[in-house]
């Protein structure tokens, strides 16, 4: 029996714990996670492979975090079912845990479309977890030829992580450009060119037709590929099964309000398994990014413990780098497109709609990008600031004297 049970042990779970503890310092908390690791930021795994961080330093909170917050952890165990009437969850180890309030921070899992002959490939992995990364690391060496299926965020970060460790990398994607979820065409071209300079080969607009052996494949346009290691990074699916099984409301992800409440009493959800309201385009959808997971978790934790601090500023934002090329994007790419900068090393485009900034892409020079992010988040009317100035460079000078005094002369 635990006052608060959290399924999942990633960022949304940590947000939940910190949210609960903001309101309730004594109630018992149990975290059940299927990974046998201290909580870590998933995006770190590529940096670990690059040597920019190590397994020992990847802990997302101090190692005393669970103790400090009086959290019981059950790790390396799956939750197999939820009984909403008895208010308990069943675990893969055969035990059950009762809850007063339940948090679903179940995240997402790699999505693998059916690919003919994939069973022939021995050295293959997805790229989501520490275990995936460690597995990949053990499979490769300086003679490896790696095939990465998927030119999205996960696939390309994997490329960055291992490029210096292997002989060659080929990336294949059905889409005709890289990072289509966060970049426009010009941005994709710039990033692709920069990765090609580093030696990465791309096959775009095609997919694997068939794996013909453990080390060969043919593409839909008949190209023959040879490789020794396969990374699948096609996409992810939210883990909504447990909730769906008890009749909870699910669209693409679990439906929650700004307080993290689901359609079922005493069950909350947040993070990559849940939807939220994207303020940059006024749409209900999954915004599977790390800060969002934290904020949703925190809002849910606070409401689970009886408080109320809605999280109503969800929107996509991504900061991603490939070697020395940084990319920061946020919001939605709707409305008027204003290309501010477009040269060999830099690209900047702003999207404005109804007198507001709704999205941006910055590649290369990303200094102070957060000022743009805040314009989207705060829905700042662009006619209330000096848009010409802020368009050139993100700067506080573009705000009115009163706003600047508010920002720099008060505590926040």
């Amino acid at each position, binding site marked *: 029996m635990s006052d608060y049970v959290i399924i999942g042990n990633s960022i949304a779970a940590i947000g939940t714990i910190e949210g609960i503890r903001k309101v309730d310092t004594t109630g018992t908390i149990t975290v059940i996670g299927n990974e046998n690791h201290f909580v870590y930021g998933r995006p770190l795994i590529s940096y670990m492979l690059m040597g920019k961080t190590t397994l020992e330093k990847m802990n997302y909170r101090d190692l005393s975090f669970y103790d400090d917050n009086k959290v019981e952890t059950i790790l390396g165990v799956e939750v197999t079912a939820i009984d909403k009437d008895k208010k308990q969850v069943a675990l893969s180890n055969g035990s059950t845990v009762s809850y007063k309030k339940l948090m679903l921070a179940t995240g997402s899992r790699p999505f693998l479309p059916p690919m003919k002959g994939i069973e022939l490939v021995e050295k293959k992995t997805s790229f989501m977890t520490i275990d995936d990364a460690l597995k990949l690391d053990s499979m490769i060496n300086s003679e490896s030829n790696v095939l990465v299926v998927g030119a999205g965020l996960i696939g390309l970060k994997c490329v960055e992580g291992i490029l210096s460790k292997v002989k060659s990398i080929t990336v294949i994607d059905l889409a005709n450009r890289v990072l289509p979820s966060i970049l426009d065409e010009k941005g994709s071209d710039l990033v692709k060119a920069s990765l090609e300079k580093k030696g990465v080969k791309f096959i775009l607009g095609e997919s694997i037709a068939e794996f013909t052996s453990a080390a060969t494949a043919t593409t839909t346009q008949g190209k023959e590929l040879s490789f020794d290691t396969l990374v699948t990074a096609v996409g992810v699916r939210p883990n909504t099964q447990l909730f769906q099984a008890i009749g909870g409301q699910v669209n693409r992800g679990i439906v929650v309000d700004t307080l993290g409440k689901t359609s079922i009493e005493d069950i909350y959800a947040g993070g990559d398994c849940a939807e939220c309201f994207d303020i940059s385009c006024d749409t209900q959808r999954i915004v599977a990014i790390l*800060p969002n997971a934290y904020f949703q978790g925190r809002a849910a934790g606070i409401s689970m413990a009886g408080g109320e601090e809605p999280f109503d500023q969800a929107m996509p*934002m991504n*900061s991603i780098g490939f070697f020395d090329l940084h990319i920061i994007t*946020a919001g939605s790419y709707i409305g008027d497109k204003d290309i501010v900068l477009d040269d060999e090393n830099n690209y900047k485009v702003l999207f404005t709609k109804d007198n507001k900034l709704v999205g941006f892409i910055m590649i290369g020079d990303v200094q102070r*990008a957060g000022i743009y992010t805040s314009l989207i988040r705060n829905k700042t009317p662009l006619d209330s600031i000096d848009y010409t100035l802020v368009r050139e460079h993100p700067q506080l000078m573009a705000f009115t004297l009163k706003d600047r005094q508010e920002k*720099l002369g008060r*505590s926040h």
Partner: protein
Amino acid sequence: MKRVYVNEKWCLGCRLCEYNCAFANSGMTDMVKALNNVTINPRIKVEKANGISFAVQCRHCKDPICVRACIAGALHLDEDGVIRIDDTKCVGCHSCVMACPYGAIMPSQKGVMQKCELCLQNSSKEPACVKGCPNHAIVYEER
């Protein structure tokens, strides 16, 4: 807690704060040795245009978005209210740059991120920008 506040009415745009910041965080004892023939990379930046100028550095928010956005757990809101970065954990992903509404976090020479930590742990022991401001345009106080 005591924070650094900026009153642009009195900012002269002299940029001494930037140099004092760079010196205080250089780990050296002599400013000439620390800064001569160096392009400084201070944690406080002066914005200057059309006769207006003011310095911007970390506001040490009580509910910091940068800390939430950090993928590595490298940014902390410490118990004394100061937001610090553990540069051994930071991987330089720039998520904090994406999040900070003041544009107050920037890359260091080491490739990881740096930010104002109020000089409490360097040789200055109190904000060097404040100490060196010739016109009290930057103050360090409770508000």
